[in-house]
């Protein structure tokens, strides 16, 4: 059988999803796929478009790559629009004249932004917000503008407003309706959203009907409104909704809805045989779905129909939860309360600025809709209740009232959910999937994510997934033992609090008051680190010395043959020629193997215990200080040269890196910490793979947190954008100290984040909004660590008693005969076992 030819018109998010699903289908080899796009690149993530203004590049937004399509045998044609369709001969023709026959045709042409027919709308700085090219035009326009107006106060309009704000403009939102997000919110929710957004400096004008756009007096343009008022602005961004891109279908007699959209049935088939339509161009039961998830469902259904499956499209849940200009907003089901006879419960907190409304059925038994503004924590549970038509509890109001300490759990609880309930809609993980993962041994949210992918898309379900996992664990009778070890029935976080609150200064004091026995190699270094984080005493004090792992104890890194490596601090990777020469001479004198590290430092290997103080005396005399490469503490701040030298740099990344490294050096933490600072979005310092990543943009610093390289790489999460130096440092102080306070033993920030209930949003609420009221204390604690910094090696070599601990033998000056080096590539290396045997016991002649 020859292959079926599948032609996909449009390579947006949904078109790509279709191709990806078909190309990875078990019968993929039966199909030959070709796709056309009028855009110059393959599919990218339009949902995340605004990230483009906070440091992401077009590259970051890509959902696929040409290499991937090539690997899967998918043919693609860019910058060539399909203009002619012959449903009789079953072929398409493109703008450039290319003809392609098809067996099945999939229209995934998406939508285009609706620009109201206002006179004057065609001027140069009147733009739309849909493609990467649009973003480039916005960026260019913003450079010569001070004020920007967004026409449209819906979801996309507010996103666009955020983009303009990130571009540094004074932003106005002009809306025709009486409130913001009129589709998703009710009056109360819309009003609170408006007041919150206004407080953020975005001016909102509702019930404004633009009559024309003319030349302005103080700005480039003036918008005249029907009520006689006007607004001066330098640029205008239209975001007044979308219209299905149905032009091609319209020309060739494919059925179109009255108000546009290609009519499809439950198989996503149009009225013409073998022609499908999916995504925002498709009209199902009189509805256009302007969200990506329903589009993905359609893509799946079309693949299923083509490959002989039975999946049907039967509508989609339009619930949304998102952050607009930093305000949490969620809408579920009939948010407007349009169902006849429905009733509602409203909770409003004018102080905390929270609005919640439940719309319930006439008999008060079912949940029909929800509006949440300012606090969307209940979203997961409520959305599930609504979608699964579950019975409401006796007092539905408890679902939106704030939890009172000691009060009963108000929520319905996850137990009531059916097994088929989708907990993670991004990855279609059901309650049943999570339950079986827990039954299979998963007991932490980090493992749950790895096992089921739940919570790894938008992250909105992490709290619900955690509740479910904990409830299942309890049911299975699993008692999660979080004791640090047999000596302390506490977690690291508990011990931190005991030390901090009880002002405990030594391990002996802590174990006497809160533990038992002598301690071990688990609790001793943990407590040593906590004590250092809190009080920052010299780690080799007699009371602390026995707590340190050998690395900390000898302030160097133990290698496999019992020798050590030495890494002096080279802040930001910046080193003077004199420093390089001194280090080279010291390495030569002590015959050390030298290697450049991944963190832009120099590692000197092969030092014996007794040589460490001698070498460090010389390094300190040459101006070096300890690099803490041995500690669970700040390692390096990697940087590029930045604006100072680079043609593309926009800020002084090397300068910031040195400043950060000097600020946080010596900070003891649950695990090692790495930081990177890049001078532009080209990201040469690989900051997104660091615990703290800083990237310069034209609007200031973007801060990424909790990235990781290593065994399980994780890109850092974008935490804040447009920061000045002071705010950047303030946020990093708070994030790091919060990690020091709450991280588990040997838990990197990436895992800490993965296990944090509430995730990134929670961390932001603690660090940016000061939800816990802890910011002042976090900063003071960091300030203490910064103020009490000492170079541990300097303190050590100045104390003869401490230097004595480095002697190899307490009763002899002989060398350690187990340490044997051989040469390789003209440097030393440890001898292998066989080489040592030969060396120590030569064969008899």
């Amino acid at each position, binding site marked *: 059988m020859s292959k079926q030819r599948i032609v996909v018109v449009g390579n947006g998010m949904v078109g790509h999803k279709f191709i990806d699903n078909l190309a990875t289908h078990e019968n993929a080899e039966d199909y030959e796929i070709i796709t056309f796009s009028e855009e110059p690149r393959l599919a990218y993530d339009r949902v995340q478009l605004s990230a483009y203004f906070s440091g992401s590049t077009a590259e970051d937004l890509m959902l696929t790559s040409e290499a991937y399509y090539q690997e899967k045998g998918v043919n693609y044609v860019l910058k060539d629009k399909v203009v002619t369709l012959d449903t009789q001969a079953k072929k398409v023709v493109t703008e450039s004249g290319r003809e392609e026959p098809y067996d099945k045709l999939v229209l995934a042409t998406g939508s285009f932004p609706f620009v109201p027919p206002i006179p004057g709308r065609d001027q140069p700085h009147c733009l739309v917000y849909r493609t990467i090219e649009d973003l480039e035009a916005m960026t260019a326009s913003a450079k010569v503008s001070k004020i920007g107006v967004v026409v449209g106060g819906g979801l996309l309009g507010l996103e666009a407003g955020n983009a303009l704000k990130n571009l540094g403009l004074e932003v106005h939102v002009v809306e025709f309706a009486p409130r913001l997000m009129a589709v998703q919110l009710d009056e109360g929710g819309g009003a609170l959203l408006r007041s919150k957004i206004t407080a953020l400096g975005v001016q909102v004008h509702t019930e404004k009907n633009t009559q024309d756009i003319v030349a302005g007096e103080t700005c480039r343009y003036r918008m005249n409104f029907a009520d006689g008022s006007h607004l001066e602005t330098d640029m205008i961004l239209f975001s007044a909704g979308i219209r299905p891109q149905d032009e091609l279908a319209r020309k060739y007699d494919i059925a179109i809805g009255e108000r546009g959209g290609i009519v499809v049935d439950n198989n996503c088939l149009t009225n013409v045989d073998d022609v499908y339509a999916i995504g925002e161009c498709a009209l199902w039961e009189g509805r256009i779905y302007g969200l990506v998830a329903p589009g993905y469902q359609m893509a799946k259904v079309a693949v299923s129909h083509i490959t002989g499956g039975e999946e049907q499209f039967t509508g989609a849940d339009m619930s949304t939860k998102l952050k607009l200009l930093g305000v949490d907003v969620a809408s579920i089901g009939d948010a407007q309360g349009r169902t006849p006879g429905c009733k509602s419960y409203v909770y409003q907190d004018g102080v905390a600025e929270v609005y919640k409304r439940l719309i319930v059925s006439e008999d008060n038994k079912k949940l029909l809709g929800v509006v949440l503004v300012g606090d969307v924590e209940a979203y997961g549970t409520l959305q599930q209740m609504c979608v699964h038509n579950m019975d409401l509890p006796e007092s539905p109001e408890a679902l939106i009232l704030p939890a009172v300490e000691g009060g009963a759990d108000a929520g319905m609880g996850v137990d009531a959910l059916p097994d088929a309930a989708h907990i993670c809609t991004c990855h279609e993980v059901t309650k049943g999937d999570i339950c079986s993962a827990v039954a299979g041994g998963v007991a932490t949210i980090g493992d749950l994510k790895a096992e089921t992918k739940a919570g790894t898309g938008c992250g909105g379900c992490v709290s619900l997934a955690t509740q479910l996992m904990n409830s299942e664990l309890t049911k299975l009778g699993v008692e999660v033992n979080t004791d640090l070890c047999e000596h302390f029935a506490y977690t690291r976080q508990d011990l931190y609090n005991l030390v901090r609150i009880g002002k405990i200064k030594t391990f002996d004091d802590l174990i006497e008051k809160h533990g038992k026995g002598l301690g071990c190699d688990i609790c001793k270094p943990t407590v040593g680190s906590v004590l250092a984080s809190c009080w920052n005493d010299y780690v080799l004090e007699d009371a602390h010395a026995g707590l340190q792992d050998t690395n900390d*104890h000898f302030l160097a890194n*133990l290698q*496999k*043959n019992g020798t050590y490596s030495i890494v002096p601090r080279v802040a930001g990777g910046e080193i003077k020629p004199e420093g390089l020469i001194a280090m080279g001479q010291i390495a030569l004198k002590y015959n050390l193997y030298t290697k450049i590290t991944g963190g832009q430092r120099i590692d000197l290997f092969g030092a014996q215990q007794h040589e460490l103080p001698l070498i460090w005396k010389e390094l300190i005399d040459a101006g070096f200080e300890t690099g803490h490469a041995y500690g669970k503490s700040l390692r390096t701040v990697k940087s590029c040269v930045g604006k100072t030298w680079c043609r593309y740099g926009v800020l002084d990344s090397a300068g910031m890196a040195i400043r950060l490294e000097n600020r946080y050096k010596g900070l003891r933490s649950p695990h090692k910490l790495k930081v990177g600072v890049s001078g532009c979005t080209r990201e040469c310092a690989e900051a997104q793979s660091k615990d703290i990543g800083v990237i310069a943009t034209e609007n200031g610093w973007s801060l990424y947190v909790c990235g990781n390289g290593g065994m399980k790489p994780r890109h850092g999460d974008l935490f804040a954008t447009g920061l000045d130096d002071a705010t950047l440092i303030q946020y990093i102080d708070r994030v790091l100290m919060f990690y020091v306070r709450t991280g588990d033993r040997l838990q990197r920030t990436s895992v800490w984040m993965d296990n944090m209930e509430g995730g990134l949003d929670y961390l932001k609420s603690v660090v940016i909004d000061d939800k816990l009221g802890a910011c002042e204390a976090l900063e003071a604690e960091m300030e203490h660590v910064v103020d009490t910094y000492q170079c541990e090696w300097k303190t050590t070599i100045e104390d003869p008693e401490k230097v004595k601990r480095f002697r*190899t033998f307490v009763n*002899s000056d*002989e060398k*350690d005969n187990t340490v044997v080096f051989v040469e390789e590539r003209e440097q030393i290396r440890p001898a292998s*076992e066989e080489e040592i045997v030969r060396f120590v016991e030569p064969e008899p002649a």
Partner: protein
Amino acid sequence: MSEENKNWQAICASTELTEPLGVRALLGDEQVAIFKVKNELYAVSAIDPFTNAAVLARGIVGDLSGKTVVASPIYKQHFCLSSGACLEDEDVSVKTYAVRDNGGQIELAQH
């Protein structure tokens, strides 16, 4: 062999030992790790049998299920300071030595 008949070697002053940090000493050509824990003296071979590196004097001392142990700083196996037995692998142990404080002088001998 009774205590008196042992070939005791003077090693260092007892003030050289800080609880619970280990020190390394040579007894003949054997490397020995000496510890003082809760006023008890212990001496075991300083060589980690898993790596043949002379690192045991640099391990963290503690107790596990009532046994006083040192953890190898390389791969973290635990060795009982009294018997020399490895807690993680019953086929492996380290040699132990006799150790005493003789009037302020630490002394070592073969068992």
